[in-house]
């Protein structure tokens, strides 16, 4: 650090402040021309900007532009949301020069609503497209009866596992319940001390959140004019205690997921399974190509034998941002992008996740047996999973902060300070404080 670099660092902070200043100064220049829902005359060409990071989406946009020469969409690839994409959007919104459309993940939608940054699409007739999408995914963009986002893709969950390693440990079938998952974890680690059934990623609490969701938790909600927070409920505590036990028994790893060490473990078989979402297939096939033919997919382990409860991990929508000049056409494009069969085919090819459109799966390239997954038609598991997701789950405007509290608590637990259970209990108060200090009304009443 030291020397010029110390100043460089200082300078870097100054740079974003300078950029912000420049952006704010440009508000005056832009806002004059930006507003007004100009009705377009027939034959008039319009141009819209769309920010996204989804791989392969450029091809779908190109197809739209070919089919709709008068409504041109300019795609600008941005870093994924959590890697700076949202920061970019919020800065642009603050400055008044945001794009017309943007990629917004489900858990971020309330955060964008916070400054009325999304346009209510129901006033442009979004309601009539509802039937094209999976009901719970449609609801992710609906607040107070208004539609703010068109769902794109999601991550219904299942259990990826190395059938060969399970067999070697003397396990003949995948765990049907979490109790069996624990027994299998013990068996696998005992049969080979360098192998584990999986990792509990302490820095990725979105994963834990999904498992609490599966167990029947409803952390967030609204009641009239007030946000409600119920994180430290018996259901969530049951899930936290379960993983605390596996952690203290040392039958799971506690290394970060999506990190070099973890990818290496996928390749070497040091982890024999992954509780993940449908899009996890691309992660495994892309990062551990040498394990082709060894994997299978099973439904999520259940808390009650014979249950079918599932959850979702990750999901994304197309939203129309404040200041968009042609919201009507933007809605038209967003709906086409996420429900037109040709567009979906291109997006599936790029690996965008699980289609939010109800017609997306059957007959698509997902709907086929895969040699990588032992010839299993594994997406049937996720198609079924998608039908059993607790639909009442909602998010809050401060979801990111809630994740951070859990990440910090879980990481401390892994380092010997506290436990997952204590982190969950502490998060309740922390999340309430976050909402309050952001200016929201909060209730924790049942």
């Amino acid at each position: 650090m030291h020397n010029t670099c110390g100043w460089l660092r200082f300078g870097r902070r100054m740079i974003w402040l300078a950029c912000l200043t420049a952006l704010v100064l440009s508000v005056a220049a832009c806002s004059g021309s930006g507003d007004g829902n100009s009705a377009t005359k027939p034959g008039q060409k319009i141009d819209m900007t769309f920010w996204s990071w989804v791989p392969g989406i450029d091809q779908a946009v190109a197809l739209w532009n070919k089919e709709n020469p008068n409504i041109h969409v300019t795609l600008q690839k941005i870093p994924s949301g959590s890697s700076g994409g949202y920061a970019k959007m919020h800065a642009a919104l603050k400055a008044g020069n945001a794009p017309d459309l943007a990629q917004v993940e489900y858990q971020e939608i309330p955060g964008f609503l916070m400054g009325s940054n999304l346009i209510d699409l129901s006033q442009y007739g979004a309601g009539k497209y509802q039937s094209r999408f999976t009901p719970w995914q449609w609801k992710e963009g609906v607040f107070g009866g208004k539609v703010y986002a068109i769902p794109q893709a999601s991550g219904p969950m299942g259990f990826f596992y190395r059938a060969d390693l399970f067999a070697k440990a003397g396990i003949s079938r995948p765990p049907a319940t979490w109790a069996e998952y624990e027994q299998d974890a013990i068996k696998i680690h005992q049969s080979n001390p360098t192998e584990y059934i999986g990792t509990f990623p302490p820095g990725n609490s979105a994963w834990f959140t999904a498992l609490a969701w599966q167990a029947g938790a409803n952390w967030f909600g609204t009641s009239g004019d007030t946000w409600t927070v119920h994180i430290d409920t018996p259901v969530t505590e049951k899930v936290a205690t379960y993983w605390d036990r596996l952690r203290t028994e040392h039958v799971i790893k506690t290394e970060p997921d999506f990190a070099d060490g973890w990818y290496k473990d996928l390749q070497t078989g040091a982890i024999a399974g992954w509780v993940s979402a449908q899009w996890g297939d691309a992660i495994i096939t892309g990062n551990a190509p040498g394990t082709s033919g060894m994997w299978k997919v099973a439904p999520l382990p259940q808390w009650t034998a014979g249950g079918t409860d599932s959850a979702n991990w990750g999901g994304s929508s197309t939203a129309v941002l404040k200041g968009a000049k042609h919201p009507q056409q933007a809605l038209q494009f967003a709906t086409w992008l996420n429900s037109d069969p040709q567009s979906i085919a291109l997006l599936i090819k790029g690996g965008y996740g699980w289609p939010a459109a109800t017609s997306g799966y059957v007959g698509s390239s997902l709907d086929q047996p895969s040699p990588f997954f032992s010839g299993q038609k594994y997406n049937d598991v996720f198609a079924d999973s998608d039908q059993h997701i607790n639909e009442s789950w909602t998010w809050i405007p401060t979801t990111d902060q809630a994740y951070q509290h859990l990440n910090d608590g879980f990481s401390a637990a892994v380092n010997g300070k506290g436990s997952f259970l204590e982190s969950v209990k502490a998060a309740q108060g922390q999340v309430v404080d976050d909402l309050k200090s952001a200016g929201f009304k909060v209730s924790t009443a049942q």
Partner: protein
Amino acid sequence: MAAVHRRTTRAAWGFLTPFLVLFAATFLLPIGYAIYESLHKNSLSGPLGLGGSHTVFAGLSNYSRALGDAAFLASVRRVLLYAVVQVPVMILLAVALALLLDTVSARAVRFFRATYFMPYGVPGVIASILWGFLYTPGTSPVLALAGHAGLHPDLLGGGSVLWSIANIVTWEFAGYNMLVVTAQLQAIPGDLYEAARTDGASAWQIARRVKLPLLRPAIVLTTVFTIIGTLQLFAEPLILKPVSTGISNDYTPNLSAYNSAFANNDYYLASAKAVLLAVAAFVLSFGFLRLVGRRGGASR
């Protein structure tokens, strides 16, 4: 005469203007904006607070929020602990390397100087990624070797990652600091050494009694830079975060401000944290300068 003077003044302003404009636009204005932001907050209206938001004056409430945030205060304590270890290690190493190079033969000097300086040419982000690989079990050849010897050190855990970061920073900047000290060493007139040798001083005595006292300005300078750099620790923990379980979102004050701004979208709180950090760096740097200034005066 007056006309010449006026022309000179005009020329001076002419030359100064580009600097002053840039200085105001990239330094004064952003600092002013950060201070302005730190005194404001969002106010929400409408059902569920989603009706709309506007900026209102918040007084010092962002500062009291930052100072009342246990995680932010812990991050300040963490970098202070880090500084207490890192600053002396860095300075001792830089001075020792410079003094050693000063005593070896000319050709070897150039080679070693370039070698020590080379890490500084690697951007901090790249260095952190490289070291991240070396710290991660499974990808690190060093850890693989240690494993064969029966050692399994956890270099990325909560107790050790701060020192793993210190190692990266030392690797990056010791050579640079060494160069600053070397430049000062070369400015010392050779007849001083000659006089010392004539008086019977050994190489060790020359280093201790002649070189070190004369290196004082360079040591003070590198120390101030190291203090500031230490407080602003950012890139290394940010890059190591995904591979470590020991780095929280508020690991260092800079990381905390970054998260407030870009993850939590609270630019107001982030600005308050940034201003607090700048004030702390200012106080510590000038405090150190006054401390050494006073001592220097007393010994004279």
